[in-house]
């Protein structure tokens, strides 16, 4: 496996009185696609900034492949953090941004960058600031992907892209990852779109890790029950319901936990369909302050 491993031990970051990160301990294996989820202000970007050695924690340890990345030239070469905006110089022309990354980044793949920018009709002679929001995101995501950094972090790069563009980027990411495995951390609010792309899921809430697990294991932590609304209600009466969606007379309820086999038999006898809980429902449940107590 190629790619950097990521470990943090009891990492905290304070901005004045506010704690952006509060005792974060995390292990991310190399060569996999990890999801970092959290509501706005949960600490995702702060955590990624530490990994990219843009800043240092107030306390605790950060290590990439076992080494402190801060002011380590080789590790910084191997790390790329792209946010939808703000990591590229807005007044530069696209072709100059490309040239900078080509010369400055050891693993940068020019063909991949050209291919993606052509596909989305990005004008090379225009400055980044003069592109639309969606086009700026395309440039950021392209630079992030084409960097082929052993630790590639994409922080909300999907912002501003329309749905077909997001879909094409996900496909490009998967195809390139399959050919060139590396450690990728993806942060996005569009959870249902990236759910099946992720191998592990880490959820931050108020600067703490509330969950860090294999995506496959997470799927079994909840169940959807779909069918006639009245029957769904009766069957889920004594269960912890964390999500509900209605479509005409049909209701889909998401319940926590793995139901008892006898319950499953009864639900199926009543014509109800059971499925895996959407990650989105689990996420909302885990990061809702109302239920937190």
């Amino acid at each position, binding site marked *: 496996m190629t790619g950097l491993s990521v470990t943090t031990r009891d990492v905290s970051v304070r901005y004045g009185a506010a704690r952006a990160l509060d005792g974060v301990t995390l292990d991310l294996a190399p060569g*996999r*696609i990890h999801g970092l989820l959290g509501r706005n202000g949960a600490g995702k970007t702060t955590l990624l900034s530490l990994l990219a050695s843009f800043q240092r924690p107030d306390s605790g340890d950060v290590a990439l492949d076992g080494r402190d990345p801060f002011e380590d030239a080789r590790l910084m070469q191997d790390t790329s953090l792209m946010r939808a905006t703000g990591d590229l110089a807005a007044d530069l022309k696209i072709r100059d941004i490309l040239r900078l990354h080509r010369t400055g980044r050891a693993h940068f793949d020019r063909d991949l960058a050209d291919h993606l920018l052509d596909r989305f009709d990005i004008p090379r002679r225009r400055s980044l600031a003069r592109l639309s929001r969606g086009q700026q995101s395309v440039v950021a995501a392209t630079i992030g992907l084409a960097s082929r950094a052993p630790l590639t972090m994409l922080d909300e790069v999907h912002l501003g892209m329309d749905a077909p563009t997001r*879909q094409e980027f*996900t*496909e490009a990411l*998967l*195809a390139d*990852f*399959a*050919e060139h495995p590396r450690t990728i951390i993806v942060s996005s609010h569009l959870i249902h779109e990236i759910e*099946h*792309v*992720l*191998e592990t899921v880490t959820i931050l809430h108020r600067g703490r890790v509330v969950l860090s697990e294999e*995506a*496959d294991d997470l*799927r*079994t932590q909840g*169940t*959807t029950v779909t069918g006639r609304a009245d029957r769904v209600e009766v069957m889920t009466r004594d269960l912890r319901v964390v999500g509900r969606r209605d479509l005409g007379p049909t209701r889909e309820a998401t319940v926590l936990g793995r139901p008892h086999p006898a319950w499953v038999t009864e639900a199926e006898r009543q014509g109800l369909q*059971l*499925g*895996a809980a959407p990650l989105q429902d689990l996420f909302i449940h885990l990061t809702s302050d109302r239920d937190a107590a």
Partner: protein
Amino acid sequence: MFEGRDPIYLQIAEAIRGEILTGALQEGNQVMSTTQYATTYRINPATAAKAFAELVAEEILVKQRGVGMFVAEGATDRLRAARREAFFDERLAPVVREAAALGITAAELTAYLHTHLDQEDDR
């Protein structure tokens, strides 16, 4: 896609088994690569690879180094044999148990089976 309760790799493996049983995939046919599978369904390539590994272990798929993944000779028969066993254990056994609980006699059951099997034959 992949809405079931099982891990996604098991759902993929089951979908491929189904395609072989219905003849949509024939013995000797090449199946999609993990990369093609991953981009087509927008899932992690490791998930697709896990599904293929499962089917290789069952001798349903064979890997030809540098070429790709193919449906194995005899895969259809192997799948049928496995399904037959599962059919009696997992499908018929509960039906027989419920029939007994409802007081349905062996004669009633066999009569029902005869009638319906004849109808199947006539199709």
